[in-house]
């Protein structure tokens, strides 16, 4: 009986610390994530599974670094950038965060619009309504109560796993593709690869996980649990992406069906749900998009205000917090507004925003590495050498891919030239 109690208390400690890593990992599989993984599987089959594995490793490294920094310093990433590198660099980092997150917010609203269009509701009705609802619910503080509904909706994405298993691909082939480096030398593939990385490892995720660790009051001595939390979270991100790619590969790629709209990704669910596949997909997409649409603008505004010293403005009334309030509103309005631009493809918004995230990620990674290497701040918890090498290689690869992508925009033949 006593051993049971000790065990139970240990579990309680563990659960009280668990969370930030897993939550962030789940939030990574938002509308943009689903769209990107589905497109990757539909267009290139299993070819991007290896990229996915790589970006999962990167996710684990980056999240671990952020979480560790948060636990040791007790401060958010934006605070540390401000205190270490001053106003100019802070503005730079915050601009990156804002741009990336406007993109991501737009992608969440695209997800919302897509799911409503599956139900037959025009985006010109659904998006303004949902945007207003998000805005008002957050300010009224009643969001927490409905959050669980969206989390439940997200579970419908487990149906990708079932679908992936039902279609019964050649598992040997899948496993080989997961670990065998594959790269196709064209701009489209490159774009997709950056998108996959950009949707897995986001600038936003790094700020969020660190803030969440600090909020929970996790300190260096509890950190061992958080490390597991982060690793488990990264594994789940990979698992969901893996099954989406496997399912879309089997249902779309092999049959030569391309994805034109995000709704097409629902076809991959047909082995599970038959004619109800689109409904299942729509519910899942709605849940994931709503979750992120609530969290993103709010946490962005908060990070920016804190870094720039407006935290005292985040007080009890909105009139006293014009910067915070303005920024938050701007993110919601612009994010939703982009989706309403005439003739814009929702699916494109989702994909593009992930690429933007991927392109904007390296500077944030560099800040994180500099801070995690600062002995004054981190003491014995500073990065090890091996760790730095791996992280640096990854950052370099990502920068190289980004540069390649930019060059290919101006010199479309770059790949032919390079291959010669």
């Amino acid at each position: 009986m006593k051993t049971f109690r000790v065990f139970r208390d240990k579990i309680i400690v563990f659960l009280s610390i668990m969370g930030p890593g897993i939550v962030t990992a789940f939030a990574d599989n938002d509308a943009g994530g689903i769209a990107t993984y589905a497109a990757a599987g539909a267009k290139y089959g299993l070819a991007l599974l290896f990229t996915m594995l790589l970006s999962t490793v990167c996710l684990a490294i980056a999240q671990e670094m952020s979480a560790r920094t948060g636990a040791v310093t007790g401060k958010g990433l934006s605070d540390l950038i401000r205190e270490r590198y001053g106003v100019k660099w802070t503005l730079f980092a915050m601009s990156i965060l804002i741009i990336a997150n406007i993109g991501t917010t737009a992608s969440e609203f695209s997800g919302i619009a897509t799911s409503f269009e599956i139900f037959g509701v025009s985006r010109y009705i659904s998006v303004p309504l949902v945007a207003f609802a998000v805005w008002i619910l957050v300010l009224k503080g009643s969001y927490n109560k409905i959050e669980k509904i969206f989390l439940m909706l997200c579970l419908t994405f487990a149906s990708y796993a079932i679908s992936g298993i039902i279609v019964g691909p050649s598992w040997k082939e899948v496993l080989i593709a997961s670990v065998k480096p594959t790269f196709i030398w064209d701009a489209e593939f490159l774009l997709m690869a950056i998108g996959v990385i950009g949707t897995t490892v986001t600038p936003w995720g790094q700020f969020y996980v660190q803030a969440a660790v600090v909020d929970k009051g996790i300190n260096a001595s509890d950190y061992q649990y958080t490390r597991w939390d982060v690793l488990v979270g990264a594994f789940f991100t990979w698992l969901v992406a893996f099954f989406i790619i496997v399912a879309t590969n089997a249902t779309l790629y092999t049959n030569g069906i391309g994805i034109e709209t995000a709704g097409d990704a629902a076809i991959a669910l047909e082995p599970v749900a038959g004619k109800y596949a689109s409904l299942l997909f729509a519910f899942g997409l709605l849940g994931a998009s709503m979750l992120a649409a609530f969290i993103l603008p709010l946490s962005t505004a908060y990070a920016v205000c804190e870094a720039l010293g407006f935290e005292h403005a985040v007080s009890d009334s909105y009139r006293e917090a014009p910067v915070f309030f303005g920024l938050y509103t701007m993110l919601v309005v612009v994010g939703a507004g982009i989706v309403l631009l005439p003739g814009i493809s929702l699916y494109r918004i989702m994909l593009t925003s992930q690429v933007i995230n991927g392109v904007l990620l390296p500077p944030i990674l560099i800040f994180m590495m500099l801070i995690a290497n600062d002995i004054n701040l981190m003491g014995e918890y500073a990065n090890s050498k091996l760790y730095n090498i791996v992280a640096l290689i990854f950052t370099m690869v990502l920068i190289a891919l980004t540069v390649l992508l930019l060059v290919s925009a101006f010199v479309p033949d770059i790949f032919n030239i390079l291959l010669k």
Partner: protein
Amino acid sequence: MQKHIAEIYFSQLRGKDICDNKGRTVGKVKDIVTLWTGGLPMITGILYSEEPDKLIPADIVQNWDGKQVILAESSEKINITQITHQQLFVGKWLLDNQVIDLKGYKIVRVNDILLSCDEQDGKQRLSIIAADIGIRGLLRRIGLEFLASRLDKKYISWQHITPLEKKTGSLKLKLDKDRFKKLHPVEIADLLEDMDYDSRNVFFKALGSEQAAEAIGKLKENTQVEIVTRMDKKQAAELLEDLHADEAANLLREMPKEKAAELLQLVKKDKAKELKWLLHYKSDTAGSLMTTEFISLPVTFTAGQAIEHLRRFAQDAEMIYYLYVTDVDEKLLGVFSLRELILADQEITLGALLHSKVITVQVNDSRKKVAEIIHKYGLLAVPVIDAEGFLHGVVTVDDVLDLFMVDRTLKASMSRYLNKRGLRRK
């Protein structure tokens, strides 16, 4: 004779060339150091090269406010000094960092630092006069202050600032205890809310245990738990002793059991006994809300004896305006008010003074029910009894007050997602 020359911002000073009296460049202003010991913080040295601890002493500066910083000596004669433990880097430890604003009771971030340049005995001396916490300071740093030239400048005078940081390295700042003495517990709670947990621990050490206890009592339970679990054990035990019994018990109830048991062992015996007793009550019931620090008087007392009793015990009681009368078995017989006691004839017995119809709640009544009763009858406190009528404790109105307040603050709405979540006050 001291003469005011000019005011300069640290952002303008940093990066200036330093020249000796022959016009030769010695280095650049990388950072400046100050003595922050309670008086006007004078600038005592300039960090001028890449070497982290080497300083040009500030007393050989001839001129601060020109295009260059001009020294009164030639570069060969400069007596380079090392940074001492009391000195503090202005750029590294103050600028861009958070400080405590003792006037607004909040944590603010320093955007720029206003320095005053005064002339004394033919030499210019520099001292910190204020921290710029406004948008103008922020824009000045990126050279765009003109954009906000119509905004007011926002300064906090150095007298009202206390650096928050404890920082690693050679520099360990001591928080100025006397400056916190004057703060109200609610104001301290405000500050605690703004702090990250590291700073919070440092802050607690600076406050006395009693003052800390009062402030902690004003915070939300989960914040209390967080703070106490991260405290030094001995310190935590002291804090539990200083908290009101009901608050301490609630705190222990929310903690992991092992931790709570461990702390209880360090608490003084009689207090620990009381706490253990309180811990028997279920959470969010009248039993868990009540305090055992109230005044109960035997029915046999006279009014005079009751006043005598009050003089001795009122100090530690949470509620003295309602006085409860019990029989020898501690069964509740009635109640009267402090006013009635004072006005009563000294010789009258309490049996004659009391009102036997007492509004009570049961030990297992819910928090909501307790709140409703307190509200309905307009009480300051309500006694808690069991089915047999034994008096267990008293719930005071402040313990249920939050049920009457609709919490619609911005902080509340952000609670789950943002920094400092769960740090809202009761």
